[in-house]
């Protein structure tokens, strides 16, 4: 009975729990409740993934109204994987939040914080599960609005201005998506994604559909921070509270990337996007540019969160590069990197949040010698950093391996070389963090800085171990990513 309603519960549970959090009025209770909900959504996501892998795609008609009239939830391997990573990250971040939020957010705002967190989670899960183009826009705005508010809770006053900047750019992006969806509706008379995919070919050559495609791609690129539309990201990640940075860095851009996959491959189809429209070369150029410019900028940053934020922009380049190949290997490399990057950035930002909890600073110069004071936290940074570079036995290696394979499959060896050079740039900025932490002598001996508490270390290490586990046993991630990519490209696996 309940099994049959899992797709709806996946979204409804955090959505209803959010206002309940506000009513609890005690920060401790709200945290406990949010954590339980986080784990419940994670459990649902695992069940959904297992069901999809064993019995095929799940369709769920919301309120009993069948598609194309009603809103349909649709779970296939791509969405199941995104649901898994988003809810998984929330289940890891929430236990971590207790101490970190207590340090960074004033007590009267903590209940609101968990409310917003759950709303944001509900929005992201909704994007991943919905089969309706307009519904996707609504969920995108639920998650975006709550993340603007979450970012503005940072301690620094610059959190306010960066949240404002994100709001302006995010709203422009969302409005572009709204225009695109509207133009699709005007030509096809439907909003259901599968229905759209069937009806679009008949009108695909019209100028309206060309315009819709352009608006959708640009709008989603703003949301997923594709270079050069990434300007909101570095400030937002730098000044947001640590928990928010971790959660958004690991999920927000990934979900927008998923939405791009849906629109480009499921609705428009690879044939239209890559042959009729010049999406392939455009994305590849921007991805490679983003990869190099953002990595180069990251090298010269003094704030450790900002280094990682620019690195995120560069990593988004890798994901986009994957889909720009428009081959099964390429798209599965993009999806793999979506999953893997969430793991590595989640682990890194959590470790950085733990450092902030103890030292109160994000500046590299203040972190001199921290490696001796907080050995476990810094070890997590080391492994996360190695994963970011793409060292074997970590997840970073797996996604780069498939990315290079995809480039060679196409015979584009210069692209493969550029990917490798990009990894070298990652090596430089990761090295700067490690150098400060392990090799610089501390300016003044701070005996009071000690190892981070267990409530922070355990979630961080859970993600670090996931980085290693999925770097060795790739059967789940690669299998699902391949299946998802073949599905998106419409070829038999």
């Amino acid at each position, binding site marked *: 009975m309940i099994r049959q309603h899992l797709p709806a519960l996946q979204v409804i549970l955090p959505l209803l729990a959010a206002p309940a959090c506000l009513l609890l009025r005690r920060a401790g209770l709200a945290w406990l409740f949010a954590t339980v909900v986080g784990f419940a959504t994670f459990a649902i996501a695992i069940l959904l993934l297992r069901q999809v892998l064993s019995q095929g795609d799940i369709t769920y008609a919301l309120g009993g109204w069948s598609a194309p009239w009603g809103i349909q939830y649709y779970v296939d391997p791509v969405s199941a994987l995104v649901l898994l990573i988003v809810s998984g990250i929330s289940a890891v971040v929430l236990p971590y939040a207790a101490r970190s939020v207590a340090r960074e957010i004033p007590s009267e705002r903590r209940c609101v914080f968990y409310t917003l967190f759950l709303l944001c989670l509900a929005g992201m899960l909704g994007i991943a599960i919905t089969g309706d183009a307009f519904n996707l826009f609504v969920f995108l705005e639920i998650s975006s609005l709550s993340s603007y508010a979450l970012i503005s809770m940072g301690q620094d006053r610059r959190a306010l201005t960066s949240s404002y900047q994100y*709001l302006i750019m995010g709203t422009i992006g969302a409005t572009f998506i*709204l*225009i695109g969806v509207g133009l699709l*509706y005007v030509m096809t008379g439907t909003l259901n994604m599968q229905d759209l995919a069937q009806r679009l070919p008949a009108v695909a050559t019209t100028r309206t559909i060309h315009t819709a495609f352009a608006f959708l791609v640009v709008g989603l690129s703003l949301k997923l921070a594709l270079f050069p539309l990434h300007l909101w990201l570095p400030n937002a990640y730098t000044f947001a509270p640590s928990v928010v940075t971790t959660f958004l860095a690991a999920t927000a851009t990934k979900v927008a990337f998923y939405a791009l996959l849906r629109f480009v491959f499921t609705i428009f189809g690879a044939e239209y996007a890559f042959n009729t429209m010049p999406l392939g070369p455009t994305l590849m150029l921007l991805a490679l540019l983003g990869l190099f410019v953002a990595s180069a900028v990251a090298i010269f940053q003094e704030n450790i969160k900002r280094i990682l934020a620019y690195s995120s922009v560069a990593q988004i380049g890798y994901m986009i590069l994957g889909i720009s190949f428009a081959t099964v290997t390429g798209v599965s490399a993009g999806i793999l990197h979506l999953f893997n990057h969430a793991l590595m950035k989640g682990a890194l930002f959590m470790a950085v949040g733990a450092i902030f909890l103890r030292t109160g600073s994000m500046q590299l110069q203040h972190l001199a010698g921290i490696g001796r004071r907080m050995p476990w936290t810094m070890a997590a940074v080391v492994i996360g950093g190695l994963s970011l570079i793409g060292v074997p036995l970590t997840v970073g290696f797996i996604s780069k391996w498939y990315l290079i394979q995809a480039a060679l499959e196409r015979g584009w060896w210069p692209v493969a070389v550029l990917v490798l050079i990009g990894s070298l740039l990652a090596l430089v900025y990761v090295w700067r963090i490690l150098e400060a932490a392990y090799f610089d002598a501390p300016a003044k001996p701070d005996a009071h800085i000690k190892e981070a508490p267990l409530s922070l270390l355990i979630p961080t290490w859970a993600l670090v171990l996931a980085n290693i586990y999925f770097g060795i046993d790739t059967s789940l991630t690669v299998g699902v990513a391949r299946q998802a990519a073949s599905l998106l490209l419409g070829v038999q696996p």
Partner: protein
Amino acid sequence: MSILGHYNYWIVIFLMMVGFYVVISHGNLVKKIVGLNIFQASVFILYISMGKIHGGTAPIVAEGVSRYSNPLPHVLILTAIVVGVATTALGLALVVRINEAYGTVEEDEIHAKDSSL
């Protein structure tokens, strides 16, 4: 079909560009929100325009009426208006907080204050 035949779409494009220009060009944070609102309003009109059918009336079943306008875009845009109102409210709330923290809502003055830190 004359070039003015679809005058509602011309209004949409005009409003869209005006709003977009205000967002980009103005340094005042409140004016940026105003621009964003105009930009969003243009999309609302776009949606409402496309639901209109020549000679169609409001979609209420009544005797002797067989042409109805499509109500779905109207319903969709009601949702989008709600999203727009929420965005405006959040944006203005942020401006109030920024004003408290910086004592100004002009972008260049805020930058000057932050770089002097």
